């Protein structure tokens, strides 16, 4: 599914990541955890095409996608969400998700301006699909709300719905529980499990240990830019290196 191989990232003189490799299996929820400054977000930005790594490769469905920009990755079935949620604030909730269907539609400037019959029918399809994903995320009642007015928790659900609308094969979630209260976190964990049930592979970077241990099938632990451990939640909880890193050795 997704393979990260020998990723090294050097910023100026600082090595943020050093030879990190792992494989994400299809259909799993994989968690990437680690203390602050471990390099989680850097790794995430490299996989998502925001940064270009100093060396190493990212392989998606056996294609080398190293250095691909995010818009190309979207067409290859990989999308991400953001820690501080990046919504299209002036657009409605429904319109946000409709943008999520960008890769699933193709009308260009000319056929849109002339409102050709196929543009019309495509538009209808986009709208219906988008409503379906709003329903999936449980926010269909907010469809006409301007997204800047949403509470943070709902914004998180919207961002997830928007990402799902592109029907990705893999979704990367950057600290999805950040800023959520415990009830919202629980809702989110249910949503993530339902995403997996759709057959979508999930990779998440997260601080909330309870959430990670509850929903992840596999966990990768980073510390000081290197991979410290990898395994099931139980294995990770019992790993002495991980315990030492977290409690400060």
């Amino acid at each position, binding site marked *: 599914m997704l393979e990260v191989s020998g990723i090294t990232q050097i910023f100026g003189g600082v090595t943020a990541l050093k030879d990190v490799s792992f494989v994400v299996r299809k259909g799993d929820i994989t968690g990437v955890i680690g203390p602050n400054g471990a390099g989680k977000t850097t790794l995430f930005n490299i996989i*998502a095409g*925001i940064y270009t790594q100093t060396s190493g490769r990212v392989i998606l469905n056996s294609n080398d996608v190293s250095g691909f*920009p*995010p*818009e190309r*990755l*979207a*067409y290859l079935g990989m*999308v*991400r969400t*953001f820690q501080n949620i*990046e*919504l*299209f*604030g*002036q*657009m409605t909730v429904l*319109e*946000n998700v*409709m*943008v*999520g269907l*960008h*890769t699933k*539609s193709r*009308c*260009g*400037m000319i056929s*849109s*301006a*002339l*409102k050709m019959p196929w*543009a019309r029918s*495509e*538009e209808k399809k*986009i709208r219906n699909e988008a409503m379906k994903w709003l329903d999936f995320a449980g926010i269909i009642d907010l469809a006409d709300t301007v997204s800047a007015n949403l509470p943070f928790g709902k914004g998180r659900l919207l961002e997830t719905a*928007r*990402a799902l609308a*592109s029907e990705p094969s893999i979704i990367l979630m950057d600290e999805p529980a950040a800023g959520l209260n415990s009830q919202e976190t629980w809702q989110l964990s249910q949503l993530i499990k339902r995403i997996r049930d759709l057959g979508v592979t999930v990779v998440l970077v997260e601080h909330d240990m309870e959430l990670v241990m509850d929903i992840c099938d596999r966990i990768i632990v980073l510390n000081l830019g290197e991979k410290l451990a990898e395994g099931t939640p139980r294995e990770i909880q019992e790993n002495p290196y991980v315990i030492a890193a977290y409690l400060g050795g």
Partner: protein
Amino acid sequence: MNREIFKYLFFALVVLITPVFFQGNYLMNVLVFMGINTMLAIALNLLLGYAGQISLGHAGFFGLGAYISGVLTATYSWNPWFAMSFAAALVGISAFLVGFPVLKLKGHYLAMGTLGLGIIIYIMFNETVELTGGPSGFSGIANLSIGTLIFDSDFKNYYLIWTFVLVTVLLSLNLANSRVGRALRALHDSEVAARVMGVNARLLKVQIFALSAVICSVAGSLYAHTMTFIAPPSFGFNFSVELLTMVVIGGLGSIYGSFLGAALLTLLPEILREAKDYDIVIYGLILMLMVMFMPGGLVRGVPELFRKITGKGGGNA
């Protein structure tokens, strides 16, 4: 949906019957200018209000359309319609090519970049004297015509130009409410998220820049063929700023707003003529107050004002 169609038909109706009240009046000439300004404001609004990319060089594209049309018809005796189409294509392709490096810039730097572009074009009009007549202007441009109908009076030109305006408004509305329009607005709000959703930000910005330039070029050609005389000052930096003012005063991201902005800024100087020497002061004051009290532009500010005056007890949110 039906409300949108109704709004458009109402707008078209107003446009069609307005000349009845002004026939033979010098205001017809002002209304012709208003049409050209509306097209230009819409063009800039597509770029600024929707995609969030500023341009201080749009008067340049307007001028290119005017000069290409003018020179091809007057010096090389082209058919005006051909000249106009050729100008639009040439300006579109040029804007597309120039757009790639220029639109890499963001914010203030983009403003500077496009400012430079506009100034270069302006200097070109002034310096290529043997081609454009330079600072003393260029005259003898042919009127547009269809068969035996020659557009040589304000009345005829009004209908010619406002037909183009109605088409521009319709196509722009369609575009704004489409997949492409959404991608543009998405780009405006969060470029990185738009890219993650598969929007090719770089290409889309360049495309809308080129489309915007094409509309300006067509407006420029229409201007040249109706005025039959053009000179560089009409296409300078001041006019780029005036266009920007129309878009902001009218309402960013609203097609009808651009019309309102263009209408106000075209009519205001005519109305203020009564005020003699104080006109520029009052003009500035009005613009200042509008920006302060109607930050969303006329298109959002006026209905709100209306609600405040009439429906205090109505209690709407």
